[in-house]
């Protein structure tokens, strides 16, 4: 079973040289730590920055330089800054190659819910709806089951949706799965030490298992 860093590490393998990537808050943010040397990617922060760098050294924080999670960050050689309309313009025009974000629920037809728990959490969707509606390639980083032990990979989402029919791939503490065009989660890889049966038990939505399922290489 993977921890958060393990999930991030596995997702980092999906990041290819030359990609522009948008990383959501939480586990997706950790992905940046595991992108191998020699793989040149540019991180987009949807508040208006291409080329997001690491956190500043202590004492070098700049209140004017933050990411979409409102964390102090730095720029890199080649960074550019722009307004929020252009930022979502490039997202909508599908110039961002890969979007990695968290989810509360994903359905077997690729719907995602990650912004609202009615009566409980009313923080707002931020840029998530824009990102999932426009991204060509969306990877969800999430826990396979919630704290009550219930599956978060469902036949249908029960929470208010963020977007429909958009998730392409899911990486959890248990598995890597793709969402099939006609519905269903296809199991691609098992986390180290996790059995297919455990994944099956943790997946409420339709799960397709074809042939031998290899263990992840991290």
């Amino acid at each position, binding site marked *: 079973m993977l921890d958060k860093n393990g999930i991030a590490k596995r997702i980092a393998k999906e990041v290819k040289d030359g990609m522009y990537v948008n990383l959501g808050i939480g586990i997706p943010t950790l992905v940046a730590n595991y992108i191998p040397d020699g793989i040149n990617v540019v991180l987009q922060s949807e508040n208006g920055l291409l080329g997001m760098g690491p956190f500043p050294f202590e004492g070098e*924080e700049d209140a004017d330089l933050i990411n979409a999670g409102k964390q102090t960050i730095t720029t890199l050689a080649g960074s550019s800054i722009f307004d929020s309309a252009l930022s979502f313009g490039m997202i909508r025009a599908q110039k961002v190659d890969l979007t990695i974000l968290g989810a509360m629920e994903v359905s077997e037809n690729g719907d995602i819910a990650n912004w609202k728990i009615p009566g409980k959490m009313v923080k707002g969707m931020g840029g998530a709806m824009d990102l999932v509606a426009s991204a060509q390639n969306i990877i969800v980083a999430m826990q396979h089951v919630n704290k009550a032990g219930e599956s978060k990979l469902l036949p249908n989402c029960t929470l208010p949706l963020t977007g429909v029919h958009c998730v392409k791939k899911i990486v959890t503490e248990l598995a890597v799965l793709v969402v099939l065009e006609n519905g269903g989660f296809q199991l691609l890889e098992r986390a180290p030490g996790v059995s297919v049966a455990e994944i099956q038990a943790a997946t409420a939505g339709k799960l397709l298992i074809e042939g031998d399922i290899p263990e992840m290489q991290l």
Partner: protein
Amino acid sequence: MINKVVKDADTAIKDIQNGQTIMLGGFGLCGIPENCIQALLRKKVSDLTCISNNAGVDDFGIGLLLQQRQVKKMISSYVGENVEFERQLLSGELEVELIPQGTLATRCMAAGYGMPVIYTPAGVGTEVAIGKETRVFKGKEYLMEYAFDADFAIVKAWKGDTAGNLIYKSTARNFNPVMAMAGKITIAEVEILVPAGELDPDQIHTPGIYVHRIFQGNNYEKRIEQRTVRTK
């Protein structure tokens, strides 16, 4: 050149009336018009509809206007980090319209570009789409979203000149340029105000034609919401 300079924040906002719609630039606490927010607090203008990506925190930014109950309605994309906000929302004292961040930015831009509506796929198939016109272009479904119609836009820039030209610094740019374009009356507060001619015409982010009033602010606190650092 036309001179847009006013004395201070209080002068700049003095004709904002109860019940009007105002845009406030900034993302979180980054790039917010601190001086004008203080002036709005002093003026105690109320029943405002505020269009702003966030609602500040409890004791800073738009959060201060919420505490004084000056806001009737917030139109935002993300309002976490604000206990008083949640309380007012859940108690029904505050009306809230949550819309996607890109939709928020683009509806500002549409106003600045004289476009009555724009189409975006953001929110298709979600509760955001309820009651909205949809249309399919090239096999993809879009929502039709209207340009905002705001009485005032209040923005913060780094540098500005007496002709109203603005330059923003770093990601404090965020919503400020698109809101600057979108107000019927646009008020800009800047950290550094210079005479017309000192800014390079090629490097202006907001042309002065969009800015009606400008003043040099002071005592910027520039609070950091999430101080994240690494060690050397």
